[in-house]
């Protein structure tokens, strides 16, 4: 493993598989135990540096670090010196001077974790940067697929919705294709990024045509906060063409699963009864997120400090 986890595109097949295998081992080691805590990272300090609100990801990283006995500092930009104008670099150097071994960073600007990695000696984990990447989400998605279906090679994954703004989609495209899955992006043309033709994916505008062939349907959240232009005529129309409802669920194969990175807009991209169906892995994804992030922290921080 490299020192940082900045993007899923960085991970080769061996590294990605190592993370998934390590997560599986950690999960089985902790299963059924009263003490769900390991001493592995005792004395190490992990900083959660969050410039964007994200309760779910922050708690997941916090729990992962705490289960490995690391000290955790949660730093949210709101109410900190950042609101007084401190730059990312100065914040990072301050945290490093305080002895942080790893910085888990979420930032609204794409590429911020890359810059950060150039300034600090510790490890940097990208917990979502702008519309760029969210590698640990992709790892936990891959882990969830592997657990449910038993494999990733040749698995057909449909990623549906707002690909344009979705770092989850980007990370999943790179990671899943590295691991041998076949990805199809399904979205209205307005919500596909420029240059998607060069990605290792197929593209479709027709959800109903893709569903019967899919082993996994990964629904993306419609990012209402980023809908600052007319990407689609109305929420109802979007939901009718790209929403996953009970009728469309029935078109899926027997083994197929439904995923969603959360938080969901129930009734928009996914119907409530679909989200709660046995096909849905949404709650599992959350639990798997902790194991996968433990694996990432162990692999980045367990090694010799440099």
């Amino acid at each position: 493993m490299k020192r940082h986890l900045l993007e899923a595109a960085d991970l080769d097949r061996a590294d990605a598989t190592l993370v998934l295998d390590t997560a599986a081992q950690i999960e089985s080691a902790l299963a059924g135990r009263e003490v769900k805590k390991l001493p592995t990272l005792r004395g190490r300090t992990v900083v959660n540096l969050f410039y964007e609100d994200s309760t779910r990801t922050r708690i997941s990283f916090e729990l992962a670090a705490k289960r490995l006995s690391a000290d955790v500092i949660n730093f949210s930009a709101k109410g900190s010196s950042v609101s007084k104008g401190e730059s990312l670099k100065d914040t990072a150097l301050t945290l490093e001077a305080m002895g942080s071994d790893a910085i888990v960073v979420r930032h609204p600007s794409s590429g911020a974790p890359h810059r950060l990695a150039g300034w600090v000696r510790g490890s940097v984990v990208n917990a979502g940067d702008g519309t760029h990447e969210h590698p640990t989400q992709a790892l936990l998605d891959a882990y969830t697929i592997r657990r449910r279906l038993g494999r990733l090679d040749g698995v057909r994954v449909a990623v549906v919705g707002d690909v344009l703004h979705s770092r989850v989609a980007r990370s999943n495209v790179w990671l899943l294709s590295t691991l041998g899955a076949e990805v199809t992006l399904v979205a209205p043309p307005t919500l596909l990024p420029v240059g998607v033709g060069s990605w290792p994916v197929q593209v479709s505008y027709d959800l109903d045509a893709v569903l019967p062939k899919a082993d996994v349907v990964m629904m993306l959240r419609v990012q209402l906060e980023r809908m600052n232009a007319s990407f689609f005529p109305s929420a109802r129309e979007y939901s009718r063409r790209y929403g996953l409802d009970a009728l469309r669920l029935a078109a899926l194969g027997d083994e197929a699963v439904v995923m969603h990175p959360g938080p969901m807009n129930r009734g928009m991209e996914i119907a409530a009864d679909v989200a709660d169906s046995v096909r849905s892995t949404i709650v599992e994804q959350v639990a798997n997120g902790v194991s996968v992030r433990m694996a990432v922290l162990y692999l980045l921080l367990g090694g010799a400090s440099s």
Partner: protein
Amino acid sequence: MAGSPAPVPENASTVLLGAADVARVVDRIAHQVIEKAGDALPDVVLVGIPTRGAPLARRLAGRVAAFAGTAVDVGTVDITLYRDDLRTRGVRALEDTVLPADGIDGRLVVLVDDVLFSGRSVRAALDALRDLGRPRAVQLAVLVDRGHRELPIRADYVGKNVPTSRAQKVRVHLAETDGADEVLVVGQ
């Protein structure tokens, strides 16, 4: 080897135990476990420390069953996440931790490892066991004790005591992991 006239190259290896010796040693430890456990034999859980402690524990269980007619439980406990030298030695792939379905509470756990050296692996295994349950007692069985302890840890069952220098390495090969049974001392 003793009496060799030519200077021994630094990476020369001496065979300490051959396949027949390893089998004999495992048999002896199995007898000792049976004798020491007495009536408590059904409570014994042989817990191997990966990598080579795991097949050793399974072999011991097989011999105990053959000699005493009592099947004993076998498990493995991966100690990687409990090591205190991760900072200096780097990460390694994790291995399985498998315990009997009804756990180790109140039972007699015999930790099994191939080589006893600094004692740090055993300390890590004791820490791991503490998180997994509360055995009535924990004993330690090793194929080779090579000395150089850094912690106050002593084995209850020792296949062979081997005085070594710190520069030497003890290599244990087992049929399950390496194709053949053999214990070598490498270096001088």
